[in-house]
């Protein structure tokens, strides 16, 4: 057991896999000697060398194109897109090419690659460097989507994503970088598509992701003092989606609240809410609630950003206000 930061868990997970599979390579901007602008790839260049850890020009289409071409010819790849906000610059390669190649080729092309990117708010970088774009990837058929909230999950889900034969987009939350947690010694390998109940409860199911998980947990703590027992599920993975765990929880609690960092429209919470409003409809004892960032670009000023993104208070207030 060692205590790792979320930040260092990224390199830890990648290193584990690069040692295991000598064909695995990485590419991205400033990921080599510089160790990444979030210092998430520190040490990898030193250990694995410039052939396997390649710095690129500022050319996101070239990065994902290279990743795709290599992956489909037998070389597994981890590609970094520095901020998820830059995915739209290479969104054709991600959504039209990487995601669809296997299908369009009727299985002739495999796509063992991981696209990693820093995601989310809290660093006051403004509207083009703070977005939560998990739903942008979730909506594209053919992509798998993961967003760990703890160091151990980062290591295990990174390993699972790398070993997965399909393309996985892995979101690393900027505001969790400095958080710490225990990671077991030896190989750590998790399973995609498995949510985790991080707090059991009986009155309401709160489904959260990444930075929203610790906030949901805090909210649950406060609600507990008011006699509301909230179960908190860390979704961890959007595709595959562990609907079974959510539906099972709602069956017990009869209430669903999703907590999303993305702006409201077409967020992952909407998808889950719609499924529960269908398959779990007869289990529900009250309206499905979503706590989201309002449908606005993110402002830069600290007070405004804090106001926009779901806070512990807003989660508590939303649930409290809808309690009967």
């Amino acid at each position, binding site marked *: 057991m060692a205590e790792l930061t979320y930040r260092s868990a990224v390199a830890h997970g990648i290193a584990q896999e690069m040692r295991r599979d000598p064909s695995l390579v990485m590419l991205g901007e400033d990921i080599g000697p510089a160790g990444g602008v979030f210092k998430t790839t520190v040490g990898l260049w030193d250990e694995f060398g410039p052939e396997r850890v390649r710095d690129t*020009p500022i050319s996101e289409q070239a990065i994902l*194109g290279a990743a795709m071409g290599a992956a*489909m010819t037998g070389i597994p790849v981890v590609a970094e897109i520095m901020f998820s906000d830059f995915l739209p610059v290479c969104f054709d390669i991600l959504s039209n090419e990487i995601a669809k190649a296997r299908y369009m*080729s009727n299985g002739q*092309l495999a796509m063992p690659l991981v696209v990693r990117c820093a995601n989310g708010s809290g660093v006051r970088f403004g509207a083009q460097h703070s977005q939560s774009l998990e739903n942008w990837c979730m909506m594209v058929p053919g992509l798998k989507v993961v967003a760990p909230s703890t160091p151990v999950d980062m290591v295990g889900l990174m390993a699972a994503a790398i070993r997965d034969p399909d393309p996985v987009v892995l979101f690393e939350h900027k505001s969790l970088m400095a958080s710490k947690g225990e990671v077991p010694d030896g190989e750590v390998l998790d399973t995609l598509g498995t949510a985790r109940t991080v707090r059991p409860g009986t009155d309401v199911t709160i489904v959260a992701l990444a930075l929203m998980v610790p906030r949901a947990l805090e909210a649950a703590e406060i609600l507990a003092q008011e006699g509301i027992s909230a179960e908190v599920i860390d979704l961890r993975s959007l595709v595959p989606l562990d*609907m079974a765990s959510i539906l099972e929880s709602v069956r017990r609690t009869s209430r669903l609240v999703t907590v999303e960092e993305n702006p409201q429209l077409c967020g992952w919470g909407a998808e889950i809410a719609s499924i529960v409003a269908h398959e779990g409809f007869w289990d529900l004892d009250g309206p499905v609630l979503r706590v989201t960032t309002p449908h606005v670009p993110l402002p830069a000023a600290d007070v405004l950003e804090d106001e926009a993104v779901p806070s512990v208070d807003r989660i508590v207030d939303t649930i409290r206000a809808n309690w009967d």
Partner: protein
Amino acid sequence: MPENHYADRPPRTPPPLNAANADLNIDREVRLQLYRRLQELRQVGNRLHELFFQNLVRGTSHLSLGMEAVSAGFGAAMRNDDYSLATYRGHAHTLSRGASMEGVIAELLGRDNGLMRGKGGSMHLVDVENGMLGSYGIVGSNLPIANGAAWSAQLRGSGQVTVCFFGDGGANIGAFHEALNLAAVWELPVVFVCENNLYMEYTPIDLVTAVEHPAASRASAYGLEEIVIDGNDVDEVYTCAQRVIERARAGAGPSLVEAITYRLGGHSRADMAKYRPEAEVEAWQGHDAIELYHRRLLSLGVGEAELTAVATDVAAQVNAATDAAKAGPPPPLEEVHTQVFADGGSSWRN
């Protein structure tokens, strides 16, 4: 709007035929193979055109009629395990790697015996077994992906070369720039081949391009040699292909080739391509890849009968492939849900 809206522009005529190309050091056998390939590509193209007008091709089809020498020449210069990537106009590039005619035709007909069982369609032919890594529907997208295949070959030390075909219009899109720069910096074993047929869909390329040669005039921007060839002279294409592929295989890095050519038909589907100056179309009809080569082979002493035999042989092959393609059933409806993920299915939840 007049159908022939660019009819009054000065025609852009073909380059003069380089007679010296007859003297290029190419084996008679290779030349006959090239001729056969040209016949195959032309005859399949014509057949697909017919099938389209019989309403049997339900989607679209972007034919390479008139442009066959580029794929034939490059295809012949490639090693079996080399990689090709093409655009939506990818039939000839797929066939020139040895893909099954039946598979190609059936794919356009949306049949279960299609190369991808109807999942991909005309614009997305893939035949990995023959090194054909795909036809890409989004202009420019295949260039960065070609880099990846080349990078993989470099990492594996396999000596494979990747050849990536794209259009003149594709030279103005951002992906072109990113791909060329990265290929040069990483010294990748990749050859980018611009098939400059002088038109985007319906707009003449010179109206929207800052330089004379959309691709070649930009070679220096990536430290590369400026290479422009007559894309309708298959000997010239083949010789150039050998040179740049050899260069890539030897580890000397990427090349960018611009092959000047012309489509004899429309951009896609029912387009009659009436928007082009008549004199231009005529000039290019007089510079047809297959007729040029036919004449050259005769001048090199090959007999008319031998050439006719090739053409007849290919015709039979195309007929058989068409019949086989047509005989294929439609894909089973469950195919909608297969091959999204590596487990063979499309399940995204439990």
